[in-house]
């Protein structure tokens, strides 16, 4: 297919009602509707305001440290013996993950809207830390809801948030993971409608969040395009990223959707295995469409529509839903979604640490676990870009425990 044809069919999702095909939308309690509609209006104005983006890019450059490098992972490439593997080094951002890109954008939205109190949910703690960071920088009080189980498995990030002046509220409802933290954040929002801005951490939830968060994360894919053209003189053959809610992945994928020559691969968390009931967090490969947390998307649920907790060793992927745009890309077949188990991710974590001198986040390790297959499929002479969305320091306790090693301290 030639480029002209592709361009005339340029992808433009979501529609004005926040729909990506049949996914997305805004399913929220009526109390929140005026707020969500007001946020959408403010966002539609901001996105067309050059001054907004100029402040955003300035903060990304001087506060976050962008652009992040595109790095040739030479030894991992040799190890797999296929296409060249590049890492988009989002783990080098301030606070150690891609999450800060979104928080910078959203804190500017909160300021524009005159909100004086920020709430957020977090799973792995990376979004919590990024939220706490921008709130410190902009002098706004911040409350982060975090599942009690996640508080336990991500202690370094909990301490970081506290240092930054944020109040971390452990959520004991449900299984004490990301979905429960999101419920609690929504309950806070519905109770404090007059002054509170909800800083959602991924490209999911009610319209306009999936679109807005995507736009704050596409800086990843846009930089990648430019960098790979400089380094290789052409676009990559494939891009790959781990998918929980899916913000790092959509940030990488979105700028390549119209380039049909570029394969797009998302990696879901298969936990204990896709065949283990309620033992994985692969919403696309092991779930079906439904409505949760403001949007219609693929969900892990039982026959009665009750949401399953799911499982992943990675707190950031341990969520029973997925951003609605991924549900759409999955349904139309533009992106392919594969899976990696806890064990696969742990092996990739160890391999990357040893071969590349980079300790990747357990989330990103899921993508690394499948990048070898992709590099072989693309073959020698090809180029694959992997979004290394976060660094793994926060995960060392979890990994040590899985390896049967004990660590003192935290």
């Amino acid at each position, binding site marked *: 297919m030639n480029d002209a044809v592709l361009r005339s069919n340029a992808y433009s999702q979501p529609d004005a009602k926040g729909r990506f095909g049949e996914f997305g939308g805004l399913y929220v309690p*009526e109390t*929140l509707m005026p707020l969500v509609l007001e946020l959408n209006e403010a966002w539609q104005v901001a996105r067309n305001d050059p001054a907004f983006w100029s402040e955003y890019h300035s903060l990304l450059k001087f506060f976050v440290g962008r652009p992040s490098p595109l790095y040739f992972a030479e030894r991992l490439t040799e190890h797999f013996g296929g296409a060249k593997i590049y890492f988009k080094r989002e783990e080098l951002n301030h606070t150690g993950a891609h999450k800060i890109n979104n928080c910078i954008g959203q804190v500017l939205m909160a300021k524009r809207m005159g909100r004086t109190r920020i709430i957020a949910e977090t799973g792995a703690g990376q979004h919590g830390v990024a939220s706490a960071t921008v709130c410190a920088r902009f002098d706004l009080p911040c409350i982060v809801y975090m599942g009690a189980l996640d508080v336990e498995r991500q202690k370094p990030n909990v301490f970081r948030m506290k240092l930054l002046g944020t109040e971390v509220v452990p959520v004991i409802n449900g299984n004490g993971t990301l979905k429960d933290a999101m419920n609690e954040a929504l*309950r806070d929002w519905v*109770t404090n409608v007059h002054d509170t801005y909800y800083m959602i951490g991924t490209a999911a939830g009610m319209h306009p969040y999936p679109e807005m968060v995507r736009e704050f994360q596409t800086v990843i894919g846009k930089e990648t395009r430019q960098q790979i053209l400089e380094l290789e003189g052409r676009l990559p053959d494939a891009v790959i990223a781990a998918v929980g809610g899916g913000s790092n992945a959509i940030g990488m994928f979105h700028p390549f959707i119209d380039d049909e020559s570029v394969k797009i691969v998302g990696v879901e968390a298969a936990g204990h295995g896709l065949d283990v009931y309620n033992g994985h967090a692969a919403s696309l490969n092991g779930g079906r469409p439904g409505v949760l947390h403001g949007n219609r998307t693929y969900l892990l649920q039982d026959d009665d529509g009750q949401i399953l907790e799911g499982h992943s060793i990675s707190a950031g992927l341990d969520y029973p839903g997925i951003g609605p745009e991924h549900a759409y890309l999955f349904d139309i077949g533009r992106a392919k979604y594969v899976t990696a188990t806890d064990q696969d991710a742990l092996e990739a974590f160890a391999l990357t640490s040893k071969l590349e001198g980079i300790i990747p986040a357990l989330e990103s390790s899921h993508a690394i676990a499948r990048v070898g297959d992709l590099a072989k499929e693309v073959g020698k002479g090809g180029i694959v870009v992997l979004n290394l969305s976060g660094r793994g320091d926060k995960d060392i306790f979890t990994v040590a425990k899985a390896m049967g090693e004990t660590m003192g301290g935290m």
Partner: protein
Amino acid sequence: MPVSRIDTRFADLKAQNKGAFVAYIMAGDPDLETSFELLKGLPAAGADLIELGFPFSDPMAEGPTIQRAAERSLKNGTKIKDVFELVRRFREIDQDTPIILMGYMNPVESRGYANWAASMREVGADGLIVVDCPPEEADGLTDALDTEDLALIRLATPTSDDNRLQTLVRRTRGFIYYVSVAGVTGVKEADANAIAAPVSRVREAGGLPVAVGFGIRTPERAAEVARVADAAVVGSALVEEIKNSLPQLTDVKTKVLEKAANLAHAVHTAR
């Protein structure tokens, strides 16, 4: 019959210049037989309408009391088909008290709109409240309910301005539920003085009776609400009585129905 069962009930009470007392319980909390016993007893205790919650794993607009009720119900294995079965059994003994199902979108989506509406009609439920389904997303569901002559009951809130009210009242039937506090169920207390003006705004916009709920815990407050609104809804305060009777369910029926009777009396004698 279904929507008209709601209309008839409100018309009858209006003719007597009485407010309606609406009692909420969660189906299957803590088990289905207890729910059935309570359903059976509520009309005699003075409940004019019954809201029957169907449990959802992630009830994002509920306070701790109703959250725990949903957890107890699900832990005991309640399925949506069991909720419908409760209504069917209730209808065998009571043909006049409207039953409104209340819950969240995903169980409805999972069953399918048409199937859900047909099941409601078949067992004799009259209306449906879906907390996380605003008008913007409700067309398909409203079509399915209209086909079966069932009411989709909308929530208006303190954040609904006049403009929003116009959107809210479109295609709503039976009554409108005014959420008296910005917040989750059963936590903040409703201020009866502050609700008079919004209740009449909502009534005028919709041309339907207005039920007030989310922050009514005592007979005094219920009476105050009944003076300005067409109905007072009490949920968390009743569900707390179920919780208080655990683990042995000691006197659960007496405790819940006594509380309901006190609230109903206050509502019925308020004007």
